[in-house]
């Protein structure tokens, strides 16, 4: 099997000495290309921590993470930032779009960070807004869009630099059930392909059907794994 993510022995704690709490107690994990992987579990079980460690924004205390055969925690911080920019797309629960920039400008940002000339970037951003079905909303600011539309803009921003790994943290938590389902369904059928993988952290049982595989976390460990026939 062709793996995009491999990780092993991940340990992460917060605080020192007596006040130390373990968020990850030794997690092993792999993700293959073309896979939609869910991480679920009770609040405080370490899902967000795991996602952050895997995606290169939170350094683990122990263990290693390899993405596309690069051991990311051996990179220095600017190399790592560059690696994320080129290889990982992020979608957050609260979208984190700039409310007063236009949808288009929000989507352009990752391209601007990659020094892509403005005209080229604009065209590409528009293309991805088209993919998420918002081409005709390109010049509107996010605060004028619905929650579902905002999350689509955020998805366009996550995929505009054509990353191979997408990480979604609670992508449907701020959306109503139907909209959430539609968005994940859309992601599963239109965004996911053989050349990329998607990791989704969620509580939302209504979207479980779209997963290929579900990891159940509890108290900093993966307790069991469920494969969905799909």
């Amino acid at each position, binding site marked *: 099997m062709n793996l995009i993510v491999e990780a092993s022995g991940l340990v992460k704690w917060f605080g020192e000495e007596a006040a130390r709490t373990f968020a990850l107690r030794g997690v092993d994990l792999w993700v293959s290309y073309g896979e939609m992987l869910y991480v679920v579990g009770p609040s405080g079980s370490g899902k967000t921590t795991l996602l952050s460690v895997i995606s290169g*924004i939170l350094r683990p205390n122990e263990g290693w993470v390899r993405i596309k055969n690069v051991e990311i925690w051996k990179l220095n911080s600017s190399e790592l*930032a560059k690696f994320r920019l080129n290889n990982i797309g992020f979608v957050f629960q609260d979208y984190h779009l700039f409310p*007063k920039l236009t949808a288009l400008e929000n989507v352009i940002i990752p391209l601007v*960070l990659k020094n892509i000339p403005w005209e080229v970037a604009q065209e590409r951003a528009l293309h991805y807004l088209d993919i998420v079905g918002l081409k005709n909303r390109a010049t509107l600011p996010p605060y004028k869009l619905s929650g579902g539309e905002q999350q689509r803009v955020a998805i366009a921003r996550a995929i505009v630099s054509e990353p191979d790994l997408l990480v979604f943290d609670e992508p449907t938590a701020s959306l109503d059930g139907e909209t959430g389902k539609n968005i994940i369904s859309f992601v599963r059928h239109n965004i996911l392909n053989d050349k990329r993988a998607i990791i989704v952290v969620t509580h939302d049982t209504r979207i479980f059907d779209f997963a290929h595989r579900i990891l159940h976390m509890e108290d900093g460990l993966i307790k069991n794994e469920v494969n969905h026939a799909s």
Partner: protein
Amino acid sequence: MNVGIARIAIKLLISDKAKFFTLVLGVTFAVFLILQMTSLFIGILTRSTSNVLNVGAQVWIMDPTVESDRTIVPLPDYLLNAVRSIPGVLYAFPIYQGSGLVKLPNGAYQGVNIVGLDDTSLFGRPIILEGNIYDIYSEDAFIVVKDAEYKKLGSPKIGATFEINDHRGVIVGIARSVIPGLFGNPTLYTTYTRAIQYLPTTRFTISYILVTLKEPSFLEQVKREVSKIGYRAMSESEFVEMIKKYYMFKTGMGMNILMMTLVSFVVGTSIAGQTFYAFVLENLEKFGALKAIGATNGDLVKTIILQSSFVSFLGFGFGNLICSSYIAFAKMRIPNYAAIITYKNIFLTLLVVVLITTLSSYIGIRRVIRIEPFEVFRG
């Protein structure tokens, strides 16, 4: 420079119209106040030296206790000959500077500055607009300076007579001065001899001795020789500097201007600083999200610096515009309004603006550098 970052940064800034307006207003306000204060200060300082600059002598000799042109310590007559015999001195002439009281035709009194020019050379003579400088030798003759104070004497024409310190005076010419004076009195020129006859004087009557050197290089030597006989020689520019320092440091004026500049600075910084910080705070999570996406601290610092530079650029421009219009308007209404905008105070204001915006963005930058993308993820 990444044009894209600049575009996004500026768009982000101006799209928050209320904050953007407050920011520009804060900087504009500070620029206006500081520029206005300092240009008034420079204007006043320049005028404070009009008594020296309007005479146009190379070297001034005075009593060593003189601190400014406000206190004139009269010099003994023998000093004139002593100075004339110093090697390096080409000419030396006395000048009288003092004040008198003119009784106007309507019975009111008006204080005037009197300049008594050396009878033989008329050294330090003003620029004549009407009449002939040599009419100054005719009986009771005075030449009046047509400046902003001229009308206080009833705008006298040639031939007009008046009473000065109980003597008769007649206007024989109208002159103009290079630099208007600071204290709002009209100025009359007459001869040295007549000045000391008409005006109550002390035992000694020479206000200053004006010297022309054979060569500018003789300056140091002449200064030394003059100090040997117990007096002080200064070049024109040294005298001017001394007077300016006097007004700056010994009259409270400099202190006041400094205080006002500081206050403007503090007010400008707090308005701009708070607004900018609020702006950064409001977008903090989004900046954090950008860090997750792969923006470096450098990218974000660049963004903030661009934004603050843009604000200071606008504030500086508007502040300058408003201040120069204000001064131009004030000069239309008050001909004697002293403010002068020079490159010096524009430059000073620019420095203050840069300081204000640097300080304002600094706290924002620190905050942005510290935000961890993980915090954004955790919500």
